[in-house]
């Protein structure tokens, strides 16, 4: 492009305008180029990772079974006020649904869903569906004749509540609460609470594990940071090798170490510390989970701590000492405050990783060492109550995101370091 310059050496106004436009265009082009580079991965992550999680979010409030497989009853119940037993039209709608559902063999799905709310609903629905071909109008009397539970107004209230396609019932259940047939929400008796107890256990065990990693990791990081780089790099292998070793390998080695016929118990018996018949139960309980997870997560504490401690000049400690501080004061007032970023980075990382754990608690945790992740897996694969699994997953996700928010405020996403 030719630029014409007038006699005074300045650009003519038109030229200035054109240059400005050119600059803008070129900046814009650069912006587009940067976006195009990032776009493939952004789209990929959105489709393969974010969409599944969004889908799970929807699933945790979705409740289509009753609406889908008992459509006429659901619709008829819309105008029912819940004061007294439904009238004949609603019973007739129910009869139609039962006939259709029996033919398509899909009434069981609605029955199963209703049974999550109140056990006994399944047999009520399935039993009536079996008898429906022999039932004649008027349906109200005939159905109550077939199963007197149809005269129980609470059962009707449950069907009405579930007849909408969306529900908060999974979250209510995941908070160990129940909805009475009248729609009031209250906590279930303490001895029946499962989920809150498990959430608390997951939280406090994760805190314990985090505390253990700080306790073990801080002195070791300090030791590594105070060594010459060559020596530290050699010892660092002892930290990095576990870090690079498969999670399942480490978990199975803890089984070999801790089980009652395992290495640690053998060693204790051989040394005469415990008798052969009183071998310690160190695995398949909460203790096993804590030991194995502390081991697995310790490198995640040592690595950020070490990299922060490397930046603290040792002369500060010496200066404090020469100014009269005793070793403890020098450490507490001078050294520790400078390593706080490392501690918080490591602790939040370990804590986030710990509360989402599944594999290790499942393999070494027994009954008392299970985490919330194990319950999610159980609802996914065991009970097939997928709505419940989704609700628990969303709650765990909110928890993790909250803590991660703290993490990025303290540390910043860009400061995540590997190896």
């Amino acid at each position, binding site marked *: 492009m030719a630029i014409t310059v007038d006699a005074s050496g300045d650009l003519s106004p038109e030229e200035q305008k054109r240059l400005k436009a050119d600059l803008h265009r070129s*900046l814009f082009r650069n912006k587009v*180029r*940067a*976006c*195009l*580079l990032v*776009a*493939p*991965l*952004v789209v*990929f*992550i959105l489709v*393969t990772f974010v*969409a*599944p*999680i*969004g*889908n*799970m979010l929807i*699933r945790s409030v979705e409740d289509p079974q009753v609406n889908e497989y008992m459509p006429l009853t659901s619709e008829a119940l819309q105008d029912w006020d819940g004061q007294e037993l439904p009238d004949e039209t609603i019973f007739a709608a129910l009869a139609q649904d039962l006939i259709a559902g029996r033919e398509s063999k899909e009434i069981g799905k609605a029955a199963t869903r209703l049974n999550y709310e109140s056990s006994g609903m399944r047999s009520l629905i399935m039993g009536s569906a079996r008898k429906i071909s022999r039932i004649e109008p008027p349906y109200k009397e005939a159905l109550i004749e077939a199963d007197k539970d149809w005269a129980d107004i609470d059962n009707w209230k449950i069907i009405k509540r579930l007849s909408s396609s969306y529900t908060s019932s999974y979250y209510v259940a995941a908070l160990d609460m129940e909805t009475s047939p009248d729609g009031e929400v209250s906590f279930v008796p303490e001895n029946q609470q499962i989920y809150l107890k498990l959430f608390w256990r997951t939280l406090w065990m994760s805190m314990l594990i985090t505390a253990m990693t700080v306790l073990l990791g801080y*002195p070791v990081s300090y*030791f590594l940071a105070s060594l010459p780089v060559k020596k530290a790099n050699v010892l660092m292998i*002892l*930290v*990095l090798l*576990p870090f*690079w*070793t*498969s999670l*399942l*390998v*480490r978990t*199975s*080695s*803890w089984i*070999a*170490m801790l089980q009652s*016929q395992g*290495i640690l118990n053998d060693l204790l018996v051989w040394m005469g510390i415990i008798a052969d018949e009183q071998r310690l139960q160190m695995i398949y309980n909460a203790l096993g989970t804590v030991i194995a997870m502390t*081991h697995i997560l*310790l*490198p995640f504490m040592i690595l950020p701590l070490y990299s922060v401690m490397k930046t603290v000049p040792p002369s500060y400690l010496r200066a404090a000492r020469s100014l009269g501080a005793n*070793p403890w004061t020098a450490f507490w007032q001078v050294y520790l405050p400078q390593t706080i970023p490392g501690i918080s980075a490591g602790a939040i990382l370990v804590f986030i990783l710990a509360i*989402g754990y*599944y594999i290790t608690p499942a393999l070494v945790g027994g009954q008392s060492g299970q985490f919330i*992740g194990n319950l*999610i*897996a159980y609802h*996914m*694969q065991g009970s097939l109550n997928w709505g419940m699994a989704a609700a628990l*997953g969303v709650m*765990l*996700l909110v928890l*993790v995101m909250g803590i*991660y928010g703290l993490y990025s405020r303290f540390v910043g*996403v*860009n400061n*995540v*370091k*590997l190896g």
Partner: protein
Amino acid sequence: MSVPSYAGPLERTWYYAFRVFCAAVFIFLIAPILVIVPLSFNAEPYFSFTQGMLTLDPDAYSTRWYEEFLTSDRWLESIKNSVIVAFFSTFLAASLGTLAALGLSRSELPYKGLIMGLLISPMIVPLIIAAAGMFFFYSSLGISQSYVGLILAHTALGTPFVVITVTATLSGFDHNLVKAAANLGATPTYTFFKITMPLIMTGVISGALFALMTSFDEVIVAIFIAGVEQRTIPMQMWSGIREQISPTILAVATILITFSVIMLATVEILRRRSDRIRGIIS
């Protein structure tokens, strides 16, 4: 660091206690991994040392578990599956991640923090949640219980590592080199392959190794979305530990440990090379 000559007895005791404590932590870190190796040569089907092993009786040792591993169809199948899935997902993760890191290192990119957060999210979100979500979503797309589904899932989980390592390499990258190349008449493509690529290669490779390791070691998502046909090594180990626990697991573990030693060494060498190239003295 050594104990100074003027230190009093208390300080001396403290100093040695501290060293003993650190040694104990190092043993805690490494012992479970080292213990696996001799146990995998156990002649008996136990997870503990037998009398014969402790007296170093050669008959107490055998390679039967390795033979079992290498002759079992299920294990061989799982090796094949792991290699297929790890290869494709690593390749995808490395390509997509490197491109994204190049974009992220440009100052013109808007909403950088948000994009970075999104791209790193597969590393932050607990795997059990990702697994549950993917199970529903991939089933509805009809790609669960297939190689495609598993490869896509593992790619998503591996990309954050590539993004992080390559972005780190690029942070020390001198953008004047690209301008110089353009000035000398090189096309952008030529510049990329001749100037940029060799300089960020170490970051790309170590990111790819992280992604490879992630895929090779990943079990939670695999349990949920892979079928019997796609059974990987970690899945086989998982069911092995839960069902018929046998020292074959330990033989596999030993092989995997060897594998991680090689990985660790490679990444370390690459890291030093990268530091040297970028002029950071190690």
